[in-house]
């Protein structure tokens, strides 16, 4: 560990983290920003499809450029733990890879901004472990490569407004999008929430793109099974009732399936530090923050999806509000409250995010799509039957299902299957307990050992 602590360390280089870091750096704070990706941008901007640019990309790129030179931007750095030192500072434990292998990097910070975004929330169904089945976010990431998708026959399924940008992006990249199947109903394309929010231009552009490429958009439909020998060759598309029970099915041939049922905010750095959480309308645990984006733990702020999923604009606004509050705390003389415009926008986008979550819930009928041998946890290859067995043996919640049947014990630490296991156990997802947020080699971990005697280390 080297030198004086940073005034602020930001984890996450999406719109929230970059806005927060830039706000603080422009005010003269010593800032470091870490992101596991090779480039800044986060889930939305890192993978923005070229040539037709996503709305907001120019603005984001400008902020990222301004940050360069004003803050230490450490890409390809994965943070696996943040802990509080006895003296009150925070220690940020990260790993980076270079030609000589994996290397630990440890930063000291007076303040932390958690801007770690969210990850896709898949649901299991028969065949979801076949090659060719991707998450919506994964499909979006592939867009970066452009050509990879040209000529592929893609089906998109799940719920939520973010299936649309994925569909139009894929279509523009030259893939044949055979259908977008939205499991929830009612709204349809004409009453899409983006329209309701005055983002009519954006939604209309997606709609136009879908129309131009003759992509059917069907509500109350979902892919409930994928078929194929070695990879996806076809999927079963079902018409659903409002609870997502199957009314009728048909087979659609395809070679790629992208699925997304919402997002799981990544809050484990917060829970490592003991930050309080609350349930978002869709049941996801998120970090509880006050008007200045402060968590319940002193010195720790959060912005963007870890405080609730509401799109990239909200993420950026929250990042700016957090940045200002951090500056205000670090430089009390320069203190000035976040201005009304930001707060108003945050309120508006938060309402939008919550409305989306209510409009696109996950309904219980998906559990009827599973068979006894459907894998619930792919890492540990746990089929539904074993989960049921655990419940019969006396598991009463997701944690005890995990202890008895191992779902969530593997490589991804339950990021993929955690939501489904909670539903199967009949409870809302609980805040994650992941003291090691990302895999770390024992060699790198050993280097974090203090050199003094063990008894001192325990204090």
């Amino acid at each position, binding site marked *: 560990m080297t030198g004086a602590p940073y005034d602020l360390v930001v984890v996450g280089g999406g719109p929230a983290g970059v806005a927060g870091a830039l706000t603080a750096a422009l005010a003269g704070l010593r800032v470091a920003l870490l992101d596991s990706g090779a480039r800044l941008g986060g889930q939305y901007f890192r993978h923005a499809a070229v040539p037709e640019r996503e709305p907001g990309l120019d603005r984001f790129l400008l902020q990222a450029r301004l940050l360069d030179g004003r803050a230490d931007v450490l890409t390809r750095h994965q943070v696996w*733990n943040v802990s509080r030192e006895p003296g009150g500072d925070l220690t940020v434990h990260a790993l980076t890879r270079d030609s000589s292998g994996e290397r630990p990097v440890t930063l000291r910070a007076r303040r932390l901004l958690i801007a770690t975004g969210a990850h896709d929330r898949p649901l299991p169904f028969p065949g979801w472990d076949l090659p060719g089945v991707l998450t919506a976010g994964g499909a979006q990431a592939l867009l970066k490569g452009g050509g990879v998708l040209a000529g592929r026959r893609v089906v998109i399924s799940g719920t939520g407004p973010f299936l649309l940008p994925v569909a139009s992006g894929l279509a523009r990249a030259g893939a044949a999008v055979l259908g977008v199947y939205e499991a929830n109903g009612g709204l349809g394309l004409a009453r899409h929430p983006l329209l309701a929010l005055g983002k009519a231009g954006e939604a209309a552009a997606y709609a136009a793109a879908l129309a131009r490429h003759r992509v059917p958009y069907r509500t109350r439909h979902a892919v409930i099974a994928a078929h194929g020998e070695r990879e996806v060759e076809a999927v079963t598309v079902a018409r659903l009732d409002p609870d997502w029970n199957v009314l009728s099915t048909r087979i659609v041939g395809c070679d790629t399936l992208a699925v997304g049922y919402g997002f799981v905010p990544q809050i484990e750095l917060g829970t490592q530090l003991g930050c309080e959480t609350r349930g978002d309308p869709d049941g996801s645990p998120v970090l509880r923050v006050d008007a200045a984006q402060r968590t319940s733990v002193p010195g720790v702020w959060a912005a963007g999806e870890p405080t609730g999923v509401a799109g990239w604009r909200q993420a950026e606004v929250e990042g700016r509000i957090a940045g200002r509050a951090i500056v205000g705390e670090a430089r009390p003389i320069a203190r000035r409250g976040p201005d009304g415009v930001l707060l108003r926008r945050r309120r508006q986008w938060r309402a939008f995010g919550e409305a989306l979550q209510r409009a696109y819930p996950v309904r219980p009928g998906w559990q009827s799509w599973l068979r006894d041998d459907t894998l619930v946890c792919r890492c540990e290859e746990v089929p539904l039957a074993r989960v049921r067995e655990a419940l019969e043996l*006396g598991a009463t*919640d997701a944690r*005890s299902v995990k202890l008895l049947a191992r779902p969530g*014990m593997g490589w991804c630490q339950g990021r993929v299957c955690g939501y489904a296991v909670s539903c199967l156990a009949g409870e809302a997802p609980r805040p994650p307990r992941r003291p*090691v947020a990302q895999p770390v080699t*024992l060699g790198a971990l*050993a280097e974090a050992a203090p050199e003094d005697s063990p008894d001192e280390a325990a204090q």
Partner: protein
Amino acid sequence: MSDVIVVGAGVVGAACAYYAARAGLDVTVVDRGPVAGGTTGSGEGNVLVSDKEPGPELELAMLSNGLWRALAEHGGFEFEPKGGLVVAETDEIQRRLTELAGKQGVEHAMVSGAELRDYEPHLAEGLAGGVYYPQDAQVQPMLAAASLLRHGAESFGRGTLRLRLGVTVTGVLRSGGRVTGVRTSQGDVLGDAVVNAAGTWGGEIAALAGVELPILPRRGFILVTEPLREPLIRHKVYTAAYVTNVASDSAGLETSAVVEGTPAGTVLIGASRERVGFDRTTSVPVLARLAEQAVALFPALREVRAIRSYCGFRPYCPDHLPVIGADPRVPGLYHACGHEGAGIGLAPATGHLLAQLLAGERPDLDLRPFRPDRFSEEAA
């Protein structure tokens, strides 16, 4: 009304319930959480004879070792008779290990420095030697506890063993001095005898009955690696320091390398011990030290990734012995708790002996060293 109410559905409570049902008693198990959701859900599952000093705990461990083998034959969980290898860094330590092995009277084989790699090909160079204990074994503790309860419920007649989960015990009912059951969040549950198998929370249950049991939490962290394709480690392997740490009275942090593979392909790395109350905050220095010690023992682990870690709170008594037996201060109250870092290993013997008591038989082992009122005598 049951003959016996067991408070706690951890591995110890499960074993008590199983053996009591087998003895023909009618049992109700209550737990505020799921099966094995307490310390049993954060233990490693070693069934060890190698790490015990000669004395009552070793006798308990030897009895338990045989019982685990018999229980495993019913199926439902894996019992891995993998054997344990204790390694010595120096000749002096090797000499002390030899001396201990001689006194234990447990089956063992002395291993010279040169032979160590026949047992564990990936061990570091330069170790002085070790002792191999073939009886050391491992179970998956959560499944073992759940299977004992399931098996008990299915084998000894309908309704003999009932399980009530999500039920918190809030009081101990008494009539004329005798225990008559427990008060719970879901109403009163009546029984002739109450077995306190609440592990680290055993002191709280005792307090509800008006008696004191000095059981404290002793925190331990475990690191779990990614699953390895080829097993790297065959036995449970630990350094001699483990034995002294287990027996230590220090509240400060103590760590020693305890490394083993599991059927899932992961490697479990322990063991740390510290008395910090019920604090779950992850201590990176502790994890780092565990990693450091494991890598020193098995250099090939350097490139292997830790994917998770968890911690638990061993139920710890000042003299490092469990509390097993009838509480003379409260007729009808029995204890089976305080097994510290060995409750999984010691569970069957505990259940078996307690069931003998409950059924009015003479226990196979002398239970005096484990008696519940021994602490107050010491204080007096």
